[in-house]
């Protein structure tokens, strides 16, 4: 019962935050010195044409009405048209999203694997943990784009092991149903496509994973260590449980909470990393799209990407909270 209430409240909060995000993007658009009419018609348009266009775009109506229209458009998936491509932003986004989603998801998986390895290795004082930790820390101090650049110099130019750009080098790679090449390859019985896509993913995904891996790993390690010195662990030891039973049976469940929320927060950083790293690897995703939109001040496109990534982040963090509530009986009050 209270569980349902919790999920409901979290969902309501999520909707409010997405609305706030939409309002912020709308406000930015109004604050922006860029004139959308000018952007559409170019410098030579006549006064009459400009007025007509303003009316057509609804820009002569009160601001509240404009926002209402804007929201209504959002609900129907209408993000306006890109000044640059002249296509609906929604159509553009749909074309670019799968590449970015695949990259971000792979990055997240790598970050989690590294973080867990890092945290457990230092908690259990495994030999070599110190070196592993130093390497990760150093990696996290290097800007994402430089990690990508080093990767290219080393694994592409020097060793020739990994490709330097794009998602795939296979011409007739299947397109659908998921548009994620790793999955589509499997679904179409084309392991070569999956393998090739993984090779393309490895460098950019690792480049965006290192920073979040260190952040998540640190939190996980300190909560593991904190829990290990808690009273209930002493009780479990007094019962004669082994260290392994204590770690897996008692400590992990109490320690993951903090790491899970950190993961939610790091997703935001990861999105920024994706945008950067896509430039380095010529990855046909949202990063490339936004990078092409920024120089020409294509506001609808920029706003579209912001809204999409922002909402994804908000939804992911709401899910994180619900997962945590499920894991901790004390939140059920």
């Amino acid at each position, binding site marked *: 019962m*209270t569980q349902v*209430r*919790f999920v409901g*409240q979290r969902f309501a909060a999520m909707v409010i935050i997405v609305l706030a995000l939409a309002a912020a993007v709308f406000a930015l658009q109004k604050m922006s010195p860029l004139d959308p009419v000018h952007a559409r018609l170019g410098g030579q348009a006549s006064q009459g044409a400009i007025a007509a266009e303003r009316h057509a775009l609804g820009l002569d109506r009160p601001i509240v009405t404009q926002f209402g229209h804007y929201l209504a458009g959002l609900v129907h998936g209408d993000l306006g048209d890109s000044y640059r491509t002249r296509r609906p932003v929604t159509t553009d986004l749909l074309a670019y999203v799968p590449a970015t989603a695949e990259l971000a998801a792979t990055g997240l998986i790598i970050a989690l694997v590294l973080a867990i390895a890092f945290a457990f290795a230092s908690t259990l004082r495994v030999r070599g943990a110190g070196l592993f930790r130093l390497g990760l820390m150093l990696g996290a101090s290097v800007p994402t784009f430089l990690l990508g650049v080093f990767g290219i110099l080393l694994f592409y130019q020097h060793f020739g092991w990994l490709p330097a750009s794009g998602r795939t080098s296979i011409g007739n790679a299947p397109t659908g149903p998921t548009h994620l090449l790793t999955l589509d390859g499997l679904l179409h019985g084309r392991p070569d496509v999956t393998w090739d896509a993984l090779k393309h993913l490895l460098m950019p995904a690792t480049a965006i994973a290192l920073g979040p891996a260190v952040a998540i790993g640190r939190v996980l390690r300190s909560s593991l260590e904190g829990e290990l010195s*808690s*009273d*209930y662990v*002493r*009780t*479990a*030891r*007094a*019962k*004669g*449980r*082994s*260290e392994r039973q204590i770690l897996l*049976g*008692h400590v992990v*469940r*109490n320690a993951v909470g903090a790491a899970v929320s950190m993961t939610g927060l790091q997703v935001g950083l990861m999105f920024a990393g994706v945008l950067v790293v896509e430039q380095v690897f010529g990855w046909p995703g949202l990063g490339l799209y936004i990078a092409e939109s920024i120089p020409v001040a294509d506001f609808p496109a920029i706003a579209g990407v912001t809204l999409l990534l922002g909402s994804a982040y908000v939804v992911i963090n709401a899910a994180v909270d619900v997962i945590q509530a499920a*894991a*901790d*009986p*004390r*939140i*059920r*009050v």
Partner: protein
Amino acid sequence: MSAQLAPEDVLTDEGYAVVATAEDLHVTFRRNGKAIHALRGISLEIRRGEILGLVGESGSGKSVLGLTLLGLHGAGATISGRATVRGRDMVSATDAERRAVRVAHLGAVFQDPMTSLNPTMRVGRQVAEAAGSDEEALRLLRLVGVPEAESRMSAFPHELSGGLRQRVMIAMAVAGNPDLVIADEPTTALDVTVQAQVLRLLRTLRDELGCSVLMITHDLGVAAQIADRVAVMYAGRLAELGESDAVLRSSAHPYTLGLMRSRLTLGVDRTRALPALPGEVPSPAAPQPGCAFSPRCSVAGPDCAETSPEPVEVEPGHHSACLRPLAVVRSTDTVSPVALTARAEPAGIDQDTAALSLRSVVKTFGVGKGFGRKRTLHALRGVSLQVAQGESVALVGESGSGKSTLLRVAAGLETADSGEVELSGGSRPQMVFQDSGASLTPWMTVEQILGERVRDLGRAARAAKVREALSLVGLPAEVGAARATQLSGGQRQRVCLARATIVPPPVLLCDEPTSALDVSLAASVINLIARLRRELGMSVLFVTHDLSVARVVADRIAVMYLGQIVEIGASDRVTSAPLHPYTRSLVSAVPDVGLTPVILPGEPASPLNPPSGCAFHPRCADATESCQDTELGLRLQRVANDDVDRVACINIDLSHVPTPVYITPKGA
């Protein structure tokens, strides 16, 4: 010590006589580069089937001894000597061996049952981890008296009351029939009435299962109540060991004698200042050479500072580690002669002027954080109380009864929902808190903290005033430059009193100011409060959960239950001839030497939904049908035209005047 068994014998011998031993055990920790000598050569044995009470003030090394026996001393400790359990040395054993010993022979109960249980695991599973199966876990939960054990199996720790949680801990400890249960302050976090239940349970289990219990406690009364033999520790060494009666009633060591004399009981002479041991417990970072007790000992000689005394048998089965002959020790007063001066005139009480008066005060809190519905906690349910000019009143009751809330309402730190709070002269009362360390701003010096109450004075005048206030509470002026972390517990509480009295308030409010202090310090702080009250002519409202403290600090005692005063009267009368059934059970639950407590069954009710009618009826032995009547409208009634004594119970003959027992000075 008495006949030692060789460890080889113990191993093979099923009819073993000794469960566990400590043999010249030293344990040293490192903290911030300093060596902390927690145990400095202690030897003792725990016999089969006995309850050995291990008592000592904080930092004396009791817990470290318990943890070392469990093999849980941690990697940071340097250990020499042996700590054996059923013949196996837990110090030199491998991790696997230690675990095997814990599984087969040991059980443990720790102080705080909330943090000692895994918050995210159902209690049934936690017990089953020790018991081996769910069926066995269920049987154990029933054995330790958990009501509705089946449904409780799937509860999480935070869903149980403190007493029930401690029962769950005990169920885990006795799982697999251990030979020794190590209980480290298992009742310290519990209310007296629940404490009595838990102590009874531990004793019954020992009788039924035949295990030994190492009962670690700072409370001599608790040890007296439950232990067969008592070991007294001081600064990491054994001071005295013997049968409980011998150690507690005819102590042989100056330290034990001092503790017993400065201990507060319901029989202490309250007309004189309390005897207090001088000085404070030494820091384990810088142990005293020779006898650690020598700086505080009234029979110490020059040899004491050099020779470290070993325990010797002073009477059959009774050991004491002191260089002086028994006769000398027993014939000397071991407590500070300064403290024994009679209290001067009792404070001048002006019965006609109320310094503080509360009328029908009601206070509720909304609880339930974040999600879930808010619930109403009824902290005060209509309390009226008057404190006369110069009078001292104590509020007693179990946790959640509303004592502290009442104090905070009086202080103006909380606003009452309804009712009136009136202070004579209108000037602010001052307050002294339980946690003296936390009530001093950590980054401010004592001088700055005290100076805050006299900000309108000039620099020089302020400094003089601070010095004066410090000297009034017996602190040297140099303390003014110190911060709270650089002071000991006793010094901090004195600084708090200095802050409260630098400008004497009409009313001094005290919230358990002595419950975090060791026995010997508590006595001196109580004496200090009495002196300040007399010299400054203040009224005192003193909150405590301890009736024996209430009795010596106060002229009148008010007993609270679930947000109401159920009985109020002269201190001696309330503690020696209690009227209300709840007061009666409180008085009889106070653990003391040579008393068998009467056990009040049931759990303290929750202020979230106080029972109807008389809130005490679910636990009351005298309850009748009409007690739970929602229309009861119970009120405090005068007892026998007396002006002082009042009680709220419908089944008491109010025409009967109880005869209080006034304690006269010993030997008088």
